[in-house]
């Protein structure tokens, strides 16, 4: 494995003893902890991945959140509220993990709002019907679980610990979604059709959540060598398909892929390829809801400014500092 710190320049490479120590820890599948020495590229890769993950949890509240006021019963509303609140919690666990790598929360928020860091492509699709709440729980949280379970063993301690906590909570998300769809499937013809229509829209974007095919994912090999990632995109996608097919049968819905069939020889399902050009477009910012999601996040940030200021002023006054020391919050991109 070569984990040479190229950013440090040709003649000031990392201290060989530190690098050797880092690689010894990885070789015995032990964890790297925040104050350990680590190669700059390991740190940068983690910051990018964990931040993107945190942003996804936060932006991911929006598609389902838009159904909170229209949930059909108090029971469904309470469940949906709890789920959306969990996603906020997931974002916070992950931001905390990311901050241990030396990036501030403020900076991470800024990078999201300025579009310098990404979030999962799936949240740029709209939630057009109430069935989408169920489909997201079943397919999107299901795909997230596939991604996240192996990350509990990621090489960076704080990231792995955040994942353990998140995975415990995700199974409720998936099950409530499945149960919602089951309930609708036993309803009227219109409700049954609504479920199928929703699954038709979310199936391919769910497969895209695992990222581009391995051949076009140049960073995967290095991330796996560092133990940051534990499986390739295609391995995880296969696992997701295999796990989902029997669930779809139980629901009585059709997955919209004519090439989907069991392959006895491989012991896996064969399946078609998502439209990778569509994924590229969504990642580039041209998905159906990209602008809306970021505008909403910016608005929430701006609307919270007075709360942050007031809490800071209150804390300062109680601790005896003059409250005049409070500086106005910077709200980049705000046009008000």
């Amino acid at each position, binding site marked *: 494995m070569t984990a040479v710190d190229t950013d440090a320049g040709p003649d000031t490479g990392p201290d060989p003893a530190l690098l050797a*120590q880092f690689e010894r820890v990885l070789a015995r599948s032990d964890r790297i902890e925040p104050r350990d020495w680590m190669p700059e590229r390991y740190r940068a890769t983690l910051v990018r991945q964990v931040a993107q993950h945190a942003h996804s949890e936060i932006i991911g509240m929006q598609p389902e959140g838009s159904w909170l006021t229209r949930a059909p019963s108090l029971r469904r509303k309470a469940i949906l509220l709890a789920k959306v609140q969990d996603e906020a919690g997931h974002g916070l666990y992950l931001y905390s993990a990311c901050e241990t790598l030396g990036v501030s929360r403020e900076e991470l928020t800024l990078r999201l709002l300025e579009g310098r860091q990404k979030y999962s492509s799936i949240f740029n699709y709209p939630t057009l019907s109430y069935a989408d709440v169920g489909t997201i729980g079943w397919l999107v949280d299901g795909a997230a679980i596939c991604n996240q379970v192996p990350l509990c063993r990621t090489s960076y301690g704080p990231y792995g610990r955040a994942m353990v906590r998140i995975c415990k909570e995700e199974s409720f998300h998936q099950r409530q979604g499945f149960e919602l769809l089951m309930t609708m499937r036993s309803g009227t013809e219109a409700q049954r059709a609504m479920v199928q229509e929703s699954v038709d829209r979310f199936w391919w974007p769910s497969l895209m959540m695992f990222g581009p095919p391995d051949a076009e994912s140049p960073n995967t090999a290095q991330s796996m060598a560092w133990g940051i990632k534990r499986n390739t995109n295609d391995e995880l996608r296969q696992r997701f398909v295999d796990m989902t097919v029997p669930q779809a049968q139980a629901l009585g819905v059709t997955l919209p892929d004519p090439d989907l069939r069991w392959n006895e020889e491989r012991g896996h399902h064969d399946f078609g390829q998502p439209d990778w050009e569509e994924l590229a477009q969504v990642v580039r910012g041209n998905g159906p809801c990209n602008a809306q999601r970021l505008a909403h996040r910016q608005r929430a940030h701006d609307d919270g400014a007075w709360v942050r200021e007031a809490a800071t002023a209150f804390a300062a006054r109680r601790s005896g500092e003059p409250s005049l020391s409070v500086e106005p919050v910077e709200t980049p991109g705000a046009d008000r």
Partner: protein
Amino acid sequence: MSAGEWPLYEVFVRGKRGLNHVHVGSLHAADDEMAVHHARDVYTRRNEGVSIWVVRADAITASSPDEKDPLFAPAGDKVYRHPTFYSVPDDVPHL
């Protein structure tokens, strides 16, 4: 203190009576009281705790985690602190 970045707190939760408080993560809050409230919402949404400690991260003094740290060297060569160091006859009870 700027309103933009509240101080960082480390959070410790006692899972149930009889257990130690264990570090569970961190969060930002304007003051101690808000840190406790945030810790409740972020880390104990499912009865994960019966008691929470929060402490400002900048108040913590840490050893270096590097395992070559000389801080831990004194314990390295004192095998006689472990019960397995002593050989006693197998047939003597309660030893």
